């Protein structure tokens, strides 16, 4: 009993943060789904969900409620224990990976020495949920989806890992906090030092999260719904939660590693200090739109709800603005780092996820052999060359005193040249292998 109290006293902050993540993440995932549907509707010139709440803002809650009370069907011949536990593995892995993320300088459960490796390694365990779920359903569609998923993850994990290694060479540490601090010292985000690495990571992370154009494990025109064909109700929702958690995780890795984490654009330059007002102005704009739309809602409740949301956003905007106008040194002014850091981090994560959606609605789905060829013939060699290029640039800078700009421009151009060669060689091979049936 005594040890338990000691434990709680030492770790209560971390415990509270963990509970917040577990409690809030499903809601966030639900709203990402809503955002995705709205973005999709916008790109296809439709309105998207509009019925539940003003502009469909309560749609995720209605969906969650529906999924909760749906019948939970377990196939007769399924391996019941594994079928039952598989979605939990996926969700647990995703949520565990969140624990090492630093959302702004203040909100982080644990600043691990192995931070980034922990996130990458633990989130990779989520594949077991997909594979075991697909196998235990005792259905060919599910099994094929699971197999595709495993093959795809193994192939693209390598490319993503090498892209991360490239950025880690620049950072010289694995701790998420210090990676961001190093980018602050450099004065540039690593995306500008290693643009090829960022590109590789974007492509590989789309493949790893099983999203279009690489969503072959759940390709509905071939496999019904892939590994989750036999799942229904809440278990199905858990798979969805895992998928969106993974999206948030890869977006956060990309943000931390390549996009400067919680740093404002031009964080070191005083001339750009006016950018500190961007969060408040942005939110005020959103609030203004809410008030503009509020009178046009069909029902009185919805009018009030939208106005209330607008008021809430104004409140957040004021909270974000308060540290800027408060006298320097006061308690309110010291909150700037935490609040603005969290804002910029979440903004970048949101933009990265928006990029995912944009790509999803732009590109048609790849064929499986195309996917494998892109991974093995193009991305993996390129990512190895990219690591070497960054290492050479660092040596040129440290040993021979070249400036960062010349060293990194030189190696980036060389890496791009290699990318061109690889693409050309691949195209040539594709032409010689054009006869279908000679692919395997």
């Amino acid at each position, binding site marked *: 009993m005594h040890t338990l109290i000691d434990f709680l006293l030492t770790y209560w902050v971390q415990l509270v943060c963990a509970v917040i993540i577990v409690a809030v993440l499903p809601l966030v995932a639900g709203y990402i789904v809503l955002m995705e549907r709205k973005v999709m509707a916008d790109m296809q010139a439709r309105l998207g969900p509009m019925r539940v709440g003003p502009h469909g803002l309560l749609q995720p809650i209605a969906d969650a409620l529906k999924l909760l009370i749906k019948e939970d069907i377990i196939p007769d011949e399924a*391996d019941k224990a594994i079928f039952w536990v598989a979605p939990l593995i996926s969700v647990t892995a995703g949520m565990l990976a969140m624990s090492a993320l630093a959302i702004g300088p203040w909100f982080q459960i644990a600043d691990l*020495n192995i931070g980034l490796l922990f996130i990458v390694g633990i989130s990779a365990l989520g594949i077991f949920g997909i*594979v*075991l779920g697909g196998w235990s359903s005792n259905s060919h569609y599910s099994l094929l989806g699971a*197999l595709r998923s*495993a093959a795809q993850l*193994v192939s693209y994990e390598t490319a993503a890992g090498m892209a991360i290694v490239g950025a880690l060479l620049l950072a010289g540490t694995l701790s998420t906090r210090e990676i961001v601090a190093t980018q602050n010292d450099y004065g540039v985000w690593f995306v500008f030092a290693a643009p090829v690495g960022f590109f590789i990571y974007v492509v590989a992370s789309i493949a790893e999260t099983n999203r279009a154009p690489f969503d072959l494990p759940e390709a509905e025109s071939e496999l019904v719904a892939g590994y989750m064909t036999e799942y229904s109700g809440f278990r199905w929702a858990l798979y969805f939660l895992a998928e969106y958690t993974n999206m948030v995780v890869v977006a956060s890795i990309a943000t931390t590693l390549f996009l400067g984490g919680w740093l404002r654009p031009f964080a070191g330059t005083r001339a750009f200090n006016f950018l500190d007002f961007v969060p408040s102005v942005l939110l005020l704009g959103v609030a203004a739109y809410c008030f503009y739309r509020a009178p046009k809602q069909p029902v009185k409740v919805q009018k009030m709800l939208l106005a209330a949301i607008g008021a809430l956003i104004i409140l957040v905007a004021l909270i974000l603005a308060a540290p800027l106008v408060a006298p320097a040194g006061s308690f309110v002014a010291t909150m700037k780092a935490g609040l603005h850091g969290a804002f910029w981090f979440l903004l970048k994560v949101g933009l990265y996820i928006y990029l995912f959606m944009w790509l999803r609605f732009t590109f048609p789905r790849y064929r499986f052999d195309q996917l494998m060829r892109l991974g093995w013939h193009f991305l993996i060699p390129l990512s190895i060359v990219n690591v070497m290029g960054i290492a050479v640039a660092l040596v040129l800078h440290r040993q021979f005193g070249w400036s960062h700009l010349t060293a990194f421009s030189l190696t980036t151009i060389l890496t791009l040249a290699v990318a061109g060669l690889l693409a050309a060689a691949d195209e040539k091979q594709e032409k010689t292998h054009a006869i279908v049936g000679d692919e395997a």
Partner: protein
Amino acid sequence: MLDQIVFYFFATLAVISAVLVVTRRNVVQSAIFLITALLATAGIFLQLHAEFLFIVQVILYAGGIMVLFVFVIMLINLDVSLHQVQFNRQWWLGLVLALVLGAQLTVAIAVGRSGLPLGAPAPATMLEPSTELVGKVLFSEYMLPFEIASILLLVAMIGAVVMAKKKV
């Protein structure tokens, strides 16, 4: 106290799942228990403040090797293999050997316990992070074995590619 609870939790988990790996008839269930055993071992590493070993165990064994294991197992026709008689009938020999080994270990620990040179534990805050330590030692003291091992792996990789390649 808390340390001991955590240790015994992971240790029991590792032992029980290791036993289940060899006693389950269903290969997929065996694979799952193997993953559990590996993760429990990783948990013990973590408890010993060897974070780097922990994450390497998770990434390489649980995340890498076991994914390939499960991948291959799923391609096997399980229904047939479930009903087949296991061709190894010497399980009692294995059991005896395991018991002998266990007895040896118990005796060795019981006898040598007093003479075991256990230094005072280092204060946790003084330790250099294990990632940096492993890196430094690997690239200075054990440079040659490390490079030899990587060449061995490269040879194995190229060999696999050559053997899998279609005749041109």
